[in-house]
């Protein structure tokens, strides 16, 4: 691929923006996906448990 100034500017102004948006949307979907809620909640609480042992 031939990188000249226009290519880079073109990329940043078009695909760069889409890429940024896509990434943000992807992260938000992951974060708000209903079935993930429970594991997030568990992760949040679990570190406060006191049992100081490996599980297996």
């Amino acid at each position, binding site marked *: 691929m031939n990188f000249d100034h226009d290519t*880079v500017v073109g990329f940043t102004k078009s695909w760069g923006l889409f890429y940024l948006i896509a990434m943000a949307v992807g*992260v938000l979907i*992951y974060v708000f996906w209903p079935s993930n809620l429970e*594991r*997030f909640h568990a*992760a*949040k609480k679990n570190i*406060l448990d006191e049992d*100081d*042992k490996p599980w297996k």
Partner: protein
Amino acid sequence: MRVGVLCSTKWGTLDMVAQLTTGERQLAIVVLSLVALLGLAMAAAGRADPIGVHGFIVLAICCGLIFVVLGAYYAPEPSPERLEHYYDDPSKVGIVLTMAWAVVGMFLGVWVASLLAWPDLTFDAAWASFGRLRPAHTSAVIFGFGGNALIATSFHVLQRTSRARLPDQFSPWFVLIGYNLFCVVAATGYFMGVTQSKEYAEPEWYADIWLVVVWVTYFAIYIRTLARRKEPHIYVANWYYMAFILVVAILHIVNNLAVPVSFGHAKSYSVFSGVQDAMVQWWYGHNAVAFFLTAGFLGMMYYYLPKRAGRPIYSYRLSIISFWGITFMYMWAGSHHLLYTALPQWVQTLGMTFSLILLVPSWASAGNALATLNGAWHKVRDDATLRFMMAAAVFYGLTTFEGSFLAIRPVNSLSHYTDWTVGHVHAGALGWVALITFGSIYCIVPWLWKRERMYSARLVEVHFWLAIIGTVIYVFAMWNSGIIQGLMWRTYNENGTLTYSFVESMVAMHPYYIARAFGGLLFLMGAIVGSYNIWMTIRGEAEVAPESADLPEPRLASAPGE
């Protein structure tokens, strides 16, 4: 058998070696011998060159460690019961090393700060000149203090959050000791004038290659432990630690690409030159701040702060969103170190833009930490350890705001090249990195050594205030000197010529340089007080932990100073 013994006493080290299986002891001796041979080869190839001296240092350290292992080589095999517990010996040693590097690094910092106020406060010898002490200071605090803290706490957090023991007992030692070998080679190298002159990547090619080996092992430990975790979901603190390990590897390898003069020379030449080198260097430099000094320590914060406060993190989802924001956007921001230089304009603009957007995930992290404390403010008032972490989150918020601000082109035209940058860096290094580390260490020391609490809560309090006052004096001194400097350099008189000579601007700095050295001295004193407190805690008696049946004797008295 005593569990919580001193790591530095003969008993402690022997106990720790005895915890290794016979296979692991043999592996340790084989690996140490190989590295010792490597040192010998360096010594032979380098002769009078500094790489030869480094060869002897490597050889001596490895031989010393071989004797340590041999000292307990015939000790009985450790009981299989050890697998019922997490493996914390490397974390313990890591914490002691963290504090040792803190004192060394901060002492060097006070020294170099004093040299700027009183330039003759040194010996008439090359090793003791400012230019050689300064990288020793930055490396000792960033890599010695910060790096050891990250390694020690990451092993601790990784095991707890995965509910899995470290995969074996040899590789964590390889990482910890290998990493410290890197730090020692780096620091001694600076005194001999071995440096690539790339800021925060000064160590030469052979140290850099060694660090890659250590880092791959570190990564493998993480992956192998995570593979045996209990929950399918990985706790967010580990995300940050993982990003730290992975991205630092990428940055380190790319920025340090160099061709050595020969295998007998410490000296190498970077494969990059001029403007490309500048961009690579500050892509590295800025993201070393992002992923070494931010991501790793955020990992620390996301575990120890909720743990100490006894409250779950305010928003788990927000911590994930800010994770991806930081991981993605920081990497674009490096070019704000090169505004108005010969770097093409479009790269400068990208750097500035992303530096501004970066404020969003940064403040999300700081806000998340502070919101976690909502409802626990009485604990913050009473518990200096928690207050360390709270203050760290505040400084993190302030510093990231300042960072975005300084990346704005017109602001940067004034601030760049001045002490303002130094003040900004130290607001982050002292206010954020060091405070979160001290807070975490005050949590972890009683847990690891099975003590009820620190030796003296009052000394933690003293440390807290020394650290806060030292940081504030330092940062205010540098704000003043930086802005004055920047303004004096660009002041014109009515004839349209520059008003001040460079020397005049330098003279104006003198009082601030004294204040800065004083602020740094307070911070150093805090670290010494903290080290003493930690030392006394380790030396104290272990509490009777209900699950430890091998600790029959009751604890005699509660810790003094309470």
